[in-house]
């Protein structure tokens, strides 16, 4: 019963992650430069990971953390080609 230090910190981290997701989504939609959009998308992805870890899916968190940057690399490839 009551709010120990652990529960308070957990709730704080979860609220911060939710705010991070919403800020990243808004910035990714309203930025116009592709590089800015990619950086904002990374902010969104960083906000998603604490939710996966909080559920206890550490294996999914590892796999997603390894796979997700590949998408950014592929998009960056076409970013550079279009600009030149």
């Amino acid at each position, binding site marked *: 019963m009551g709010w120990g230090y652990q529960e308070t910190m957990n709730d704080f981290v979860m609220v911060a992650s939710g705010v991070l997701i*919403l800020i990243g989504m808004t910035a*990714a939609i309203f930025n116009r430069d592709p590089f800015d959009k990619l950086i904002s998308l990374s902010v969104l992805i960083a906000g*998603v990971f604490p939710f996966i870890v909080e559920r206890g899916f550490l294996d999914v968190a590892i796999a997603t953390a390894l796979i997700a940057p590949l998408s950014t690399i592929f998009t960056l490839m076409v970013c550079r080609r279009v600009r030149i």
Partner: protein
Amino acid sequence: MTAELYTPEFVIGLLVLFIGTIAAAFPRPKNYLTQLINLEIPGWGLLLVMLHYNEALALFTFAAVSVLSTYIFVRVMQKKEGIG
């Protein structure tokens, strides 16, 4: 298999899924690159909704196939622009 009704990741996931779909359907600078980057936003929203239903295998598969489809889209864009 019954989950609790409104977990934070379910609400945030639905919000990101809905707004991201609208952003992917009507991209602001109307080109392929913006649409491709905006298409990644509802993918993360869908991942949060899958997390709410405790579907670990679906999370694995969706993360992997999403990156694969991004690579294919990038290749198609390079062919269409006549570079690469």
